[in-house]
């Protein structure tokens, strides 16, 4: 079947390009979404805008690299190791930094700037340990399968499949389990949840395990899908923030929608403009969206007074 070409501006726009960019968009959108859900949970429950979240992801990628390439273990083991390592990192920073700071009554900005400091430290410790050379995980990045008029690569299947499974898991966890419901109660009102007998300390622990674990997973998937450098997470972080804001801050489901929307818009834009502009397009969409919905796509105007 001969592809039908339509002229849009100077670019050739074709149906199979649309399909291809849609698959790409879902894959990169899934990575944004995984990163965004973790970041959004931490923000919703702990009121922490964690600028180190991207570097948490990077660390996940490098732990997977160490296990998968340096030690030669299978990818599954590497993923598990990355998830556990970043969850532990989350818990350690909670014990050493965030909880003591909350106890001292630190404000939102103070915590935010602290997390920027932590981001610097993590990123450059990673650089010291693994150098700035770009790395690849041991996955066959040439295998691909034809579907209809497009092709889907093994990497895309891996990323979309794992992300979808994780997202369904998180969705079930948040809506069906006691821990998940407690998390949502805490995100509505920390104090109220505490008075109503929810063990807030335990919920905070689970939040870091979940948020950190998702960051670790997102980091591995990003490393599989793109290339692994010490700046990987930081570069993704802005997109992740964009996804969260698009979806409405503090709403994990909004983060999912925002992530996918951002991934799709970025990839679709490559049908019309140079791919080097795709990040800029993503941010422009964010700014435009906020003009019309200042509280995000799924955000509600909150009642004051």
């Amino acid at each position, binding site marked *: 079947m001969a592809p039908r070409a339509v002229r849009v501006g100077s670019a050739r726009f074709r149906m199979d390009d649309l399909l291809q960019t849609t698959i790409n968009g879902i894959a990169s959108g899934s990575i944004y979404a995984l990163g965004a859900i973790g970041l959004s949970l931490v923000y919703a429950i702990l009121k922490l*805008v964690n600028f180190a979240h991207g570097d948490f992801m990077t660390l996940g990628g490098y732990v997977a690299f160490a296990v998968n390439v340096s030690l030669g273990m299978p990818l599954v083991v590497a993923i598990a190791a990355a998830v556990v390592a970043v969850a532990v990192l989350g818990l350690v920073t909670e014990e050493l*930094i965030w909880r*003591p*700071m909350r106890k001292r009554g*630190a*404000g*939102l*900005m*103070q*915590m*935010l*700037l*602290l997390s*920027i*400091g*932590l*981001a*610097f*430290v*993590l*990123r*450059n*410790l990673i*650089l*010291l340990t693994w*150098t*700035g050379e770009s790395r690849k995980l041991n996955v066959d990045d040439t295998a691909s399968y034809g579907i209809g008029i497009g092709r889907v690569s093994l990497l895309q299947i891996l990323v979309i499949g794992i992300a979808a499974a994780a997202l369904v898991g998180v969705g079930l966890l948040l809506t069906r389990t006691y821990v998940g419901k407690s998390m949502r109660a805490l995100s509505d009102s920390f104090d109220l949840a505490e008075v109503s007998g929810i063990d807030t300390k335990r919920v905070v622990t689970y939040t870091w395990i979940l948020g950190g674990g998702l960051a670790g997973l997102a980091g591995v998937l990003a490393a599989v899908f793109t290339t692994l450098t010490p700046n990987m997470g930081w570069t993704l972080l*802005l997109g992740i*923030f*964009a996804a969260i*804001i698009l979806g409405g*801050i503090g709403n994990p489901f909004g983060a999912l929608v925002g992530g996918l929307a951002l991934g799709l818009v970025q990839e679709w834009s490559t049908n019309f403009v*140079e791919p*080097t*502009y795709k*990040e*800029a397009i993503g*941010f*422009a969409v*964010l*700014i435009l969206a*906020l*003009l019309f919905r*200042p509280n995000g796509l799924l955000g509600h105007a909150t009642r004051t007074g």
Partner: protein
Amino acid sequence: MGPLLAFGFWAYVLTVAGIYAIFVLGLQVHVGDTGLLNFGHVAFMAAGAYSTGLMVTNGVPLLAAIPLAMLVAALLGVLVGLPTLRLRGDYFAIVTIAAGEILRIMIQNQQGATGGTLGLRKASGGWPSFNRDILRWFEDTLGIELERRVPLLVITWLVALVIALLLVRIGRSPWRRALRAVRENEDAVAAAGKPVFQLKLQALALGAAIAGVSGVLFTLLQTSLYPENFEPIVTFVGFAILILGGIGSYFGVVLGSILISFIISGVRFLDFPLAADKVAALRFVVIGLIIMAVMAFRPQGLFGKKEELHLD
């Protein structure tokens, strides 16, 4: 390393410190005075730098280009502010980084005009030859042989001083009282009948124009401009300076910029038993630790007033 070379190197580090000081004075107007958490400040520096570079490479005299570059930076401030200043603080922070990245990516992609990643060469226009004239004048008339970086070093710090003094003078005005009130509580300011949005927009434009000046001086220092000079990290180094010196303190900005510039550029000069890229990483670990330590133990910075600290 001979002593003369070493002096030239320190002159360079101190010039960079002065440029950072100006950059952060602009940031202080946003963050310290008005409470605008501007994480895209580097965009205004880039606007100042690239508009200077583009004008002089297209035949505009440098002296005419400088005020225009400031104007361009201020206008960019207005352009960024119009859609974003009504947003909540945390949204504003993220959206300003995004705006800065959009600008950088555009500069990178408009290769025909900006040279893209290959750089914009001869961006400082007539400055190098003017600098040579200054050096020759000193040698011929006064018999003093100046290091070639000294004139810019002196100019940079004079400009920093003038801007700081102007800001101190502005600091006593009812306008800045209204800005500080915006920083504290926008509702209270609106209830008092003050135009919150305009005040924020004016502060954003003023701070952006100041950052534009730092961009001009950066152009004179580097001669060639590259998009990677204007990555978000520059803004965060600016925040490190602001935090270290003290949010709200102009004097703190000056000292903070010297300290941080020493850490960034200065450690290169010390003898480390490590490879160059490792040293580079190490200094940002140190900057990160400084930010964390100041935020944890002295959130008002070295010179900020605890009562006026506004990090909440």
